[in-house]
């Protein structure tokens, strides 16, 4: 089985700060990590590999330094790493990124064997769009399973995959045929710690570096800034909302009075809410659930 995992090197969002004066994002010295959702995808791929045999190829599109992320993925146990790097890719939005990755995955299929499952994280923590995975699936005409919490089984004979998908209000068990694309949620399993021999192999494995042309992209107009219709108009820090907590003295007051006081205070701040909730008269007449009085 050939499993391809798309990863992205992202700034560790927990360590990004906004400059207090200029309101710009301070990128200086912010460490990079592998997008956490992608690590969940990699772990799932490695597990499948152990269960069914095969190989895991990790691929990323990014600057040269993204090689660090690939090397790390190799130490976790991935067998092969492909870095898609070319100045033509600079400034890619999700459309251009999914185009380039889809081309690269097709090329990986040609070179190293057709993938059975392509994995991505459900989204990246820097862009948060969740569009690249589905974009790849569409372009490669793959079955698409998004927001997958767990891969339940793969039937190699009938070439079917069964997964648990997190959905609003519950879980769905979905089955489809291979090849498919899975976007993984994180939190199912932490990424493993690679064995010593994996780490040694990773240190010696050469990361495959492909330019746009190497990935079979003949028309760079679909890549990078030129292939990206998305325009970032403005980046800004939301103004911080400063609100003081108000304290209400409740000593020796009946609960009803405390509750009425609370509601009155809220409505004083948000008059529209009062109307929306259907309050017409004084508090406690309409719309308030019947609370257990004086208890």
């Amino acid at each position, binding site marked *: 089985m050939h499993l391809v995992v798309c990863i992205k090197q992202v700034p560790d969002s927990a360590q990004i700060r906004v400059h207090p004066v200029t309101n710009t994002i301070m990128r*200086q*010295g912010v460490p990079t990590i592998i997008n956490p959702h992608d690590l969940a995808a990699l772990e799932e791929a490695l597990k499948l590999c152990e269960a069914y045999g095969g190989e895991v190829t990790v691929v990323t599109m990014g600057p040269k330094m993204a090689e*660090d992320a690939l090397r790390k993925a190799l*130490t976790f146990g991935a067998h092969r790493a492909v870095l898609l790097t070319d100045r033509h890719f600079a400034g890619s939005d999700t459309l251009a990124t999914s185009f380039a990755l889809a081309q690269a995955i097709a090329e990986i299929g040609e070179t190293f064997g057709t993938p059975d499952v392509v994995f991505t994280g459900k989204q990246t923590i820097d862009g948060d769009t969740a569009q690249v995975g589905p974009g790849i699936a569409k372009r490669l005409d793959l079955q698409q399973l998004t927001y997958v919490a767990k891969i339940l089984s793969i039937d190699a004979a009938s070439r079917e995959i069964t997964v648990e998908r997190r959905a609003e209000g519950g879980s769905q068990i979905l089955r489809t045929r291979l090849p498919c694309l899975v976007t993984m949620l994180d939190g199912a399993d932490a990424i493993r*710690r*690679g*064995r*010593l*021999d994996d*780490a*040694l192999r990773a*240190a*010696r494995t050469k990361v495959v570096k492909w330019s746009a042309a190497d990935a079979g992209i003949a028309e760079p107009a679909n890549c990078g800034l030129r292939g990206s219709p998305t325009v970032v108009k403005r980046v800004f820090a939301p103004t911080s909302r400063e609100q003081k907590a108000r304290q209400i003295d409740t000593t020796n007051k009946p609960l009803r009075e405390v509750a009425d006081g609370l509601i009155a205070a809220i409505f004083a701040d948000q008059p529209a809410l009062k109307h929306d909730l259907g309050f017409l008269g004084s508090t406690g007449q309409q719309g308030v659930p019947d609370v257990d009085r004086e208890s």
Partner: protein
Amino acid sequence: MTKEKFDAIVVGAGMSGNAAAYAMASRGLKVLQLERGEYPGSKNVQGAIMYANMLEAIIPDFRNDAPLERHLVEQRFWIMDDTSHTGMHYRSDDFNEVTPNRYTIIRAQFDKWLSRKVCEAGGTVLCETTATGLEWDSAGKAIGVRTDRAGDVVLADVVVLAEGVNGLLGTRAGLREVPKSKNVALAVKELHFLPEEVIASRFGLTGDEGCVIEAGGTISRGMAGLGFLYTNKESISLGIGCLISNFAETMERPYALLDAFKRHPSIQPLIAGSEVKEYAAHLIPEGGFNAIPRLCGNGWVVVGDAAQLNNAVHREGSNLAMASGRMAGEAISIIKSRGGVMDKASLSLYKTILDKSFVVEDLSKQKDMPSLLHTNSPNFFTTYPQLISHAAQNFVRVDGTPKIEREIATTAAFLRARSRWGLVSDAVRLASAWR
């Protein structure tokens, strides 16, 4: 699975480990280097000043691509009391030479760079991998290491212990003692970010010129210690360190010292408006010559901070680490080329080379200094700075008192504080420790 076998395993990717690994890998040895941090440099803390010639001995053309911050043109020594500093500044245009002598560096970046050189030379570097124990054969020779990753022991002809001041591998194996608290300083530092032009104007620097301040006095609250301020390109490294034994006796808190140092009226304006990005702490070996442990044995050598190779008086550490690592690497390469066995007798070649070098020469010259400063720390770090400050103020303040009265007052202050005998004895002991 077959066990991997290397010519040498280097434990640690700091200055000494990288120097050793590079020396061996570039001579064609099959080298494995283990580093517990996420990347080389991620766990390494230093001020940091890097001395060029020790690095030149390893990578002659390092100036082409090494991440260097500023070359130093000015050195300030400050003796501080609570409100003042008495300083000696040395600045020279001679330091604006083609191949400058000293640079400030940021270790996280520098070590990454040096490690890349190790990889390019053919070494295998594994990060996030902690060596947990040495493996011995029945004859008592180290034959490899165990790691915290699942899998087999990795074998090697020789293990280079470059594991730093607090190296657990060697102490656990009984190759050396855990460093004594009087032989180790704890330094804390912060990295303050400021725009390049602000740093340039505050210190009077052009281009890549840099300035360092090293300060002693009441900032260490009577303990044997030193404060420092180093200018990087867009940041200032600021820190203070004192002996662990002093911290234990006085119950002073390191971060409180640093906080007070930052708020000192002589320091505060230099870092005003900066943004603190990093807080780090590190142990520094201060025991000098007398604290150097056994340097080699059957199948192992120890280098750098792990071998306590640090010159407290001249504030040199990383250069001794680089030099000792290189010498160990060269010795091992020589033994290997002769087809020799890496036993205690052959590896003593490393000790021979080291003994003949400036490393041991310098350390032995000042072998009594650490204990002198330790036993006399309140005098050297509180009394004298206060007296010097007092004397300086007496000299410059003009308020109508006759000069002779002021001079008498200054002398009297010295005598009151230390007595004639105390002054003479401090001077003699300081001079003899220096020699």
